[in-house]
């Protein structure tokens, strides 16, 4: 790799550890089913996540149909409605978004992007997926038990979540809690791998400040998850004991249907604290990988280095740290010391600073750039718009005084769907269009991709933008039906019908994406190793798709950051991370 013109001081340091010894699969089963290869595990994770994601999408139609045509569809009674709301929320947040960003993209991209042969502990990485799969099966199996899945809302607040009035109180809630505990166990095994691979298994020359922002985002999210999931783990275990053994951790003395329950002296607020100690970091566990991916998409497709790379990294870390101490803003109306409200409002609003910094840097990256409007770029731009939109309403809700009247209205639904529903999903689509050529060796159809983008982007706006208005009117979320409500005008019902029709259409339009995904497997144009002419390491593998061990005989050596686009004096408009330095180059 070394070139005669390379100055001595840029030569990479010698290797500190011997190359790893890989486990080589001997049969089809160990190669593709019980696989220890992070790339196969990534596909398994993403496939499972997308499958349950489709289930959650269908459940959202159930919710929308009821809101638009209350009582018109016979099978949607109040129980089914609440069960759909609960399962839609929990699946989308935990089993889809978290799993696909960390388990899917994390597994595929981390080893390739930092120049490792695999995750550091492939066996445990494999276990991580299988425990995750069991967790999803346990969750979905609740549909086949008497009473069906729980209808407690995705927050599972006690006391109502385990009392007899709630749908699925027989088995649904138990299966939900067991499934979450399993998910956390599985995630911990994977998360340790992601974090340690980034910290301890980078290739020669790959410093932390030369990692693509995708890796930074996933790394920070994995660290947050390792610290935040314990809160949910403990909350689930204690709620499970309250439900099954009759302990009273969260259950106060209460009378239900004229009958005094055996519960005595527990603290429901404690559950809310534990839940949101996980729940708020969870937002950033989903958002930080999206931030990272979008930075890379914008840089590659605008042929320009990311603006303010170091600021971007520190912003990710700042958001991660602040994100751990803001959970109380979900509990403004739960009853809290006003000083806590003050503290949580200040920390919440402070997050706007590093977040806005990232948005400015994305925009400045686009400034005077050579923008290619490819499908991944369109999705990245779509993310920018929806994220800014959802972020600004977050400032409204972060203020205690504004939050109190808006709490539990559709305004909140609109806010979090914009900021952590639509925005990350747009990034996932963009990322799939972007890395599909590396994973399969073929391009996805650009024309279908653009149609898919415009329908999804405009459709998502049409669905969630009017919801802000409904929320400001005071229309409550979670309600099965509104009945005679004086403050909600009749036009709101019309708006609800419009939203539902668009939601159904946008949902069905996702079949364009799946058609494209599967058709391109066989019929896509051959991609070659680096169709986007990207500089980061995953595009420099000797084979496409990358083989077992990723790098052939010799691990790559890294000489620069992953954003060397349009470098003056370089032979092409990009310099791969592992290309020897060119004379006079000043890449970090």
């Amino acid at each position: 790799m070394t070139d005669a013109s390379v100055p001595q001081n840029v030569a990479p340091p010698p290797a500190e550890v011997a190359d790893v010894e890989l486990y080589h699969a001997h049969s089809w089963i160990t190669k593709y089913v019980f696989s220890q290869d992070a790339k196969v595990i990534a596909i398994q994770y993403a496939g499972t996540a997308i499958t349950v994601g489709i289930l959650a999408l269908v459940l959202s139609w159930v919710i929308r149909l009821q809101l638009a045509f209350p009582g018109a569809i016979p099978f949607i009674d109040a129980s089914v409605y609440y069960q759909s709301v609960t399962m839609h929320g929990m699946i989308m947040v935990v089993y889809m978004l978290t799993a696909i960003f960390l388990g899917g993209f994390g597994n595929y991209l981390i080893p390739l992007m930092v120049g490792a042969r695999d995750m550091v502990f492939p066996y445990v990485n494999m276990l991580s997926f299988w425990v995750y799969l069991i967790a999803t099966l346990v969750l979905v199996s609740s549909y086949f038990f008497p009473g069906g899945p729980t209808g407690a809302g995705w927050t599972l607040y006690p006391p109502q979540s385990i009392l007899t009035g709630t749908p699925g109180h027989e088995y649904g809630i138990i299966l939900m809690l067991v499934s979450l505990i399993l998910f956390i166990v599985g995630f911990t095994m994977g998360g340790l791998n992601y974090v340690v691979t980034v910290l301890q298994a980078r290739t020669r020359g790959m410093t932390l400040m030369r990692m693509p922002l995708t890796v930074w985002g996933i790394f920070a999210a994995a660290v947050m998850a390792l610290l935040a999931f314990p809160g949910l783990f403990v909350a689930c275990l204690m709620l499970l004991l309250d439900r099954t053994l009759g302990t009273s951790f969260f259950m106060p003395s209460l009378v239900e249907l004229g009958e005094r329950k055996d519960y005595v002296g527990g603290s429901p607020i404690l559950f809310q604290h534990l839940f949101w100690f996980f729940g708020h970091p969870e937002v950033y566990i989903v958002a930080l990988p999206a931030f990272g991916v979008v930075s890379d998409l914008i840089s590659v497709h605008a042929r320009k280095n990311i603006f303010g790379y170091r600021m971007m990294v520190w912003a990710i870390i700042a958001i991660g740290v602040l994100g751990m101490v803001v959970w109380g803003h979900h509990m403004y109306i739960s009853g809290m010391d006003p000083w806590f409200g003050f503290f949580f409002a200040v920390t919440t609003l402070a997050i706007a600073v590093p977040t806005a910094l990232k948005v400015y840097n994305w925009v400045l990256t686009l400034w005077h750039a050579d923008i290619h409007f490819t499908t991944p770029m369109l999705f990245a731009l779509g993310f920018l718009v929806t994220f800014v939109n959802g972020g600004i309403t977050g400032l409204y809700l972060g203020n205690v005084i504004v939050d109190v009247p808006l709490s539990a209205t559709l305004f909140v639904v609109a806010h979090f769907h914009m900021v952590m529903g639509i925005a990350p999903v747009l990034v996932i689509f963009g990322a799939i269009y972007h890395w599909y050529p590396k994973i399969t060796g073929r391009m996805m159809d650009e024309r279908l991709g653009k149609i898919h983008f415009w329908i999804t982007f405009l459709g998502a706006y049409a669905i969630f933008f009017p919801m802000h208005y409904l929320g400001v009117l005071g229309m409550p979320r979670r309600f099965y039906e509104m009945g005679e409500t004086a403050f909600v005008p009749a036009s709101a019902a019309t708006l609800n019908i419009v939203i539902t029709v668009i939601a159904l259409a946008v949902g069905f339009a996702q079949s364009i994406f799946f058609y494209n995904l599967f058709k391109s497997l066989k019929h896509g144009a051959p991609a070659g190793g680096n169709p986007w002419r990207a500089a980061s390491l995953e595009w420099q593998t000797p084979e496409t798709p990358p083989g077992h061990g990723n790098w052939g005989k010799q691990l790559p050596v890294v000489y620069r950051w992953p954003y060397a686009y349009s470098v003056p004096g370089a032979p092409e408009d990009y310099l791969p991370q592992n290309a020897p330095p060119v004379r006079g180059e000043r890449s970090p």
Partner: protein
Amino acid sequence: MTAEPVTTEHVTTEPTLRSSLHGMVADWSSDQRSFKGASWGKAMMWIFLVSDTFVFSCFLISYMTVRMSTTVEWPHPSEIFALEIGGKKIPLILIAIMTFDLITSSGTMAMAVNFAYARERRKAAILMLVTAFFGAAFVGMQAFEWTKLIHEGVRPWGNPFGAAQFGSSFFMITGFHGFHVSIGVIFLLIVARAVWRGDYDVGRRGFFTSRKGRYEIVEIMGLYWHFVDLVWVFIFAFFYLW
């Protein structure tokens, strides 16, 4: 398709670990590894322990919360946790023995690590077995204590001595800790067997992982074991002394 891994020639033998804050900055600004001198396995165990610390912290903080928010009086620990020996009630005697037992096991574990690095396989394996024995004895005494409390009428959902949350928190937290000790005992036995047979000298591959192990696993095992002991000190302080 599959590339045979090659051992790079440039592997440094010099430790790259530097002391002081400057050294730390240098390590984290460098390539390849952020924790110089630590293998991935050791780093992974440390990070797992940080995560596990959060689990136990959540348990203990929840316990403190329910203990403070319940309206019924909390049972008196020095009476509940007393044993009658020779017609006299001795407070906290069992728990004193259990704590002594567990802290002793930390000592034998540390010695096992030392002998493992010195390649004194027999001594290392025997000391690990002794550690496992102390761990098993701890779990046994815990079972004895649970039995005694259950006989006296303490249940997860209530007890005759006061707040119902006493039994709930006690069984949940000591149970979760006892589960950690049990897992540790199982892994100690597995590693002790491997050390005894000399698996790490001949490069025998692990049954599940298909990887060659190293003597470092004894130290990693020790990290876990010491952590479980440390957690016990906190549980001991918050449950029995408060």
